């Protein structure tokens, strides 16, 4: 067991290194990604700053707390873009070009390879930007208990797995239905639901967003960990949800593969 974990860990490091070497070729990408995402960050920040000119609270939080929420959103999204995004985007193409076959012929877990093969190291600039905003927003909170940041060690990976699991369900269906552009668009809409604090939604919707379609877990729960006094129901829920989601993706992937190898010729 330990041996397998070690193998996959070292394999991931090797793939990350290879990704970095490959990305060095395209240095312009680093800057163009920052350029595009900077506008997105600005749009989110300005929207809330303007809204808060006219209201005290949105959901449970005031303007300073909302800035933290956005900071967390930026950082988590950057991690997702670096580690996972490019791989899931390319599933359709891999299936179409037959590259999936080459992956299946290797003695490693195909879901692992498919998910983590390429890291988009160019997005690192965005991670820096997002982290700066997060730190800036935390400094603006009076009496912030910095020990709370330790929660993020558990919660960040959980959030990433939640994004991954949900996105994976959408993307992996490309293995079954070869045309899935609409599904990608649908995913983006669903993901957006998680970009607003869960407390903003009506109770019924909020419940759904934390359980059935758990995009609400992605940013809202780490935000609660930092901003509210510890509420174990919220903070420990991801630990239950995450193994369930991972198991779900595992079963779904096996199903998709069976379909794939029975349908191709």
């Amino acid at each position, binding site marked *: 067991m330990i041996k397998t974990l070690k193998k996959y860990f070292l394999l991931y490091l090797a793939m990350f290194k290879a990704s970095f070497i490959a990305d060095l070729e395209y240095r312009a990408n680093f800057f163009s990604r920052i350029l595009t995402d900077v506008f997105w960050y600005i749009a989110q920040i300005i929207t809330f700053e303007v809204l808060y000119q006219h209201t005290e609270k949105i959901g449970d939080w005031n303007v300073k707390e909302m800035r933290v929420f956005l900071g967390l959103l930026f950082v988590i999204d950057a991690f997702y873009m670096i580690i996972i995004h490019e791989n899931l985007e390319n599933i359709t193409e891999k299936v179409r070009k037959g590259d999936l076959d080459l992956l299946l012929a290797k003695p490693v877990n195909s879901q692992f390879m498919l998910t983590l093969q390429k890291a988009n190291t160019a997005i690192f600039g965005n991670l820096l930007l997002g982290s700066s905003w997060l730190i800036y927003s935390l400094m603006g909170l009076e009496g912030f208990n910095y020990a709370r940041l330790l929660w993020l060690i558990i919660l960040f990976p959980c959030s990433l797995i939640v994004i991954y699991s949900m996105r994976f369900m959408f993307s992996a269906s490309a293995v079954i239905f070869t045309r899935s552009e609409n599904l990608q668009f649908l995913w983006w809409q669903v993901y957006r639901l998680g970009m607003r604090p869960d407390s903003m939604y009506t109770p019924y919707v909020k419940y759904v967003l934390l359980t059935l379609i758990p995009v609400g877990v992605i940013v809202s729960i780490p935000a609660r960990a930092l901003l509210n006094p510890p509420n174990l129901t919220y903070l420990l829920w991801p630990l239950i949800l995450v193994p369930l989601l991972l198991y779900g993706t595992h079963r779904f992937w096996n199903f998709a593969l069976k379909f794939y190898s*029975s349908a191709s010729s």
Partner: protein
Amino acid sequence: MKNVIETHDLQRIYQTYQKPEGLVNSIKGIWERKYDSKIALDKTSIKIEAGKIIGLVGANGAGKTTLLKILSGLVTPSSGDASVLGYRPWERKNDFLRQMSILLGQKNQLWWDISPLDSYALLARIYDLDVTHARKKVDELASVLDCKHVLNTQLRRLSLGERMKMEIIGALLHEPKILFLDEPTIGLDIVAQENIRHFLAKYVSEKEPTVILTSHYMDDIATLADSLLLISKGKIVYQGTVEQFTNNTNSELAHDEKVDFEEVIRRFLETESRVR
């Protein structure tokens, strides 16, 4: 000699949706779909001995790639059974995958933007290979293939011939017992083709893996193959050596064997297409 590959009544049928003609039928097709059954591979039973090179020949769509994909575990058969190195290929057990290698002629398994050496480092991790040993192997293989000078250049900067050589090294790195080669020389110039043929012949005589080779270049088959599997419309229509095949079908002519073989195959394929 031990049988490395055995199949019993291996069959692969798949459904294709019959696209209707015209507007009325297209509308009807929304709730009433007609399916066509296509037999890609029809009840095949073959036995292949260890250490042999088998040439798989047939027209496009005859079932070569299907057979190859079933034996390498990429496609699940509709019925029947197969055993490769003692495993059922489509169960894709890691122990099986570690001992086999598949080279698909037009596809790259190596990363496009990094050097072959960097890709091999990754492969070594995937196949749990000892790093120094792997490095040595790479050097050996690259010397024979005469491509050591480009090992450190990014894959996308290499010519097609050099890329193919790199792919071959990658496929042989983990010293597989079974090698599936699907069109390994496609698109290469004559010199590169011969290079690779010589290399494969030498490698097989030294390491004795079992090789299943498909190719549209009859020179590949004639030079390399010990046995011939001729497949037509999903059925194996001939199983035996290349010489026997040429002799059986062309007993009167006694010309140069290579030309004969190609002629004979061409006539065979022509009759095939006419009968369709």
